[in-house]
């Protein structure tokens, strides 16, 4: 019979250097519901709802335009930590992973899964249990704020977006489900109960025109947009820069990106 989970966990906490066997790691990996597929050892990859291929494409789409070397990064809604780990591997000096919902979820047990992956990968990443609606300036100011897959899960995304602005020094990266994408006027759709994808945690679907308005309203001075690399216009990625952004942060946007705050940019996103 397998050992109780509590004992493995305790051992991992007290003896961080003790390498567990591949077989034991596999058993522990299988004891969690994973969202991110993460290669922990050669041949040992967590079986996540998102495949490695999709995550690789997302990482490239979200992070490649930016030079993270030496920067501070906060990952809001980190879940299993794939983007926190990616930011660290891309040279970030400091990475703080935060979450609450998935980390406290009685089935997903995201915090424990994150801890297992972090320990196994040996990456120096901080973790803090905090819900986005509770984030304030007290968290500190970060060069880059990753706000991926969170906006539309919030009943009050406007409040939280304003909170994200207050912890952003240079770049806020927002990835979100969208709706009304064929409307040039700013708007967002409300999803009562679980009508969007049978998921009661989905609340709002904004369109690019709205995201642009909101981000400018919050004091960002430039907003770049691209479609999601695999899901297209159904989800959007927004890079919003503060006036303090250093030129060296931006490596260069490829042709998938679009400067939203130029005349005709929003109209250009509409399908005829």
């Amino acid at each position, binding site marked *: *019979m*397998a050992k*109780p*989970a*509590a004992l493995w*966990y305790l051992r991992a906490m007290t003896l961080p250097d003790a390498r567990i066997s591949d077989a034991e790691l596999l*058993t522990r990996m*299988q*004891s*969690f*519901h*994973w*969202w991110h597929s993460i290669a922990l050892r050669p041949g040992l990859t967590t*079986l*996540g*709802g998102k495949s490695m291929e999709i995550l690789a494409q997302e990482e490239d789409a979200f992070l490649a335009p930016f030079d993270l070397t030496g920067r501070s990064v906060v990952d809001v809604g980190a879940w299993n930590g794939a983007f926190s780990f990616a930011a660290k591997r891309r040279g970030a000096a400091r990475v703080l992973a935060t979450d609450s919902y998935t980390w406290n*979820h*009685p*089935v*997903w*047990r995201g915090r*424990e899964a994150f801890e297992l992956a972090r320990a196994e990968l040996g990456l120096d990443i901080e973790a803090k249990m905090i819900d986005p609606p509770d984030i304030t300036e007290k968290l500190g100011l970060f060069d880059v704020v990753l706000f991926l897959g969170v906006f539309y899960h919030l009943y009050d995304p406007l409040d939280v977006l304003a909170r994200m602005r207050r912890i952003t020094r240079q770049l806020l990266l927002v990835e979100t489900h969208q709706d009304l994408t064929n409307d040039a006027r700013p708007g967002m759709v409300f999803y009562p109960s679980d009508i969007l994808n*049978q*998921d*009661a945690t989905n609340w709002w679907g904004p369109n690019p025109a709205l995201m642009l308005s909101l981000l400018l309203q919050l004091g960002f001075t430039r907003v770049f947009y691209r479609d999601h690399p695999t899901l297209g216009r159904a989800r959007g990625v927004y890079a919003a820069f503060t006036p303090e952004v250093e030129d060296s942060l931006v490596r260069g946007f490829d042709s998938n990106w679009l400067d939203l705050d130029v005349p005709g940019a929003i109209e250009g996103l509409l399908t005829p």
Partner: protein
Amino acid sequence: MTPQSELSDQELLARIGRITWFHSLELRPGIVTPGAKSLAVLRREEEALLGPFDLRGRSVLDIGAWNGAFSFASKRRGAARVLATDEFAWTHPTYKGLESFELARAELGLEVETLQLDPTRMDASLGQFDLVLFLGVFYHLFDPIDVLQRMRAVTGQVLLVETHQDALEREEPAMVFYPGRTLANDDTNWWGPNPPLMLHLLRQLGFARIYYRDHPHYLPAEGSRTRGIFAAILPGAEPAMSAHFGIEWRDLGAAGAMRDFRP
């Protein structure tokens, strides 16, 4: 889909009246079978049992299907293939389970397969199904361990067990035996397992994660958790199939999970 049946409302009502129903099923607008379980109760059970799963394109095996409520629900939720099985209720002289199932299936026009087979005789030759529904059966078996092993053999991804339970005050695995008619005056009730027992039994059979929730109608607030629902997930199961476990569920493998069960 249009109903396959050409019965008049009158004839349909007459046929419904000849059967003792367990599930209330709305066969036509306004025509509902008079089941011991009401429509509202079944709707809540369906949400609690099937809500966590994306069944679109997947295969489902329903053990002890009786009148078929959960087979039909699975099909309606997009399952590509549903196999309903039963023997006790389907061959029972009063329940006339198979006749009832076929009447409902024809009325609802749902493509659901049937197989008259008792779970004690099932094995891997039946094939493997993405989701196996083992609802309200465990405690009716004299040898539930053998049958649970058989259920493991036909499970491709997830086994869903709904059962009466007992011995909740104990943290160690235990199940209570009910000789004769000691439980609810019903001589088909044999065992009352507790959650630790289900956890360890299912783990022993090779399931990697065991999630639990209280039955929506037998809540702790009402005195005791006399029924529980266990979702046992095999290593390698597709995460996308079981992505909607809500906050009512908990991972029984988590540290301290068992302590909460004590009354």
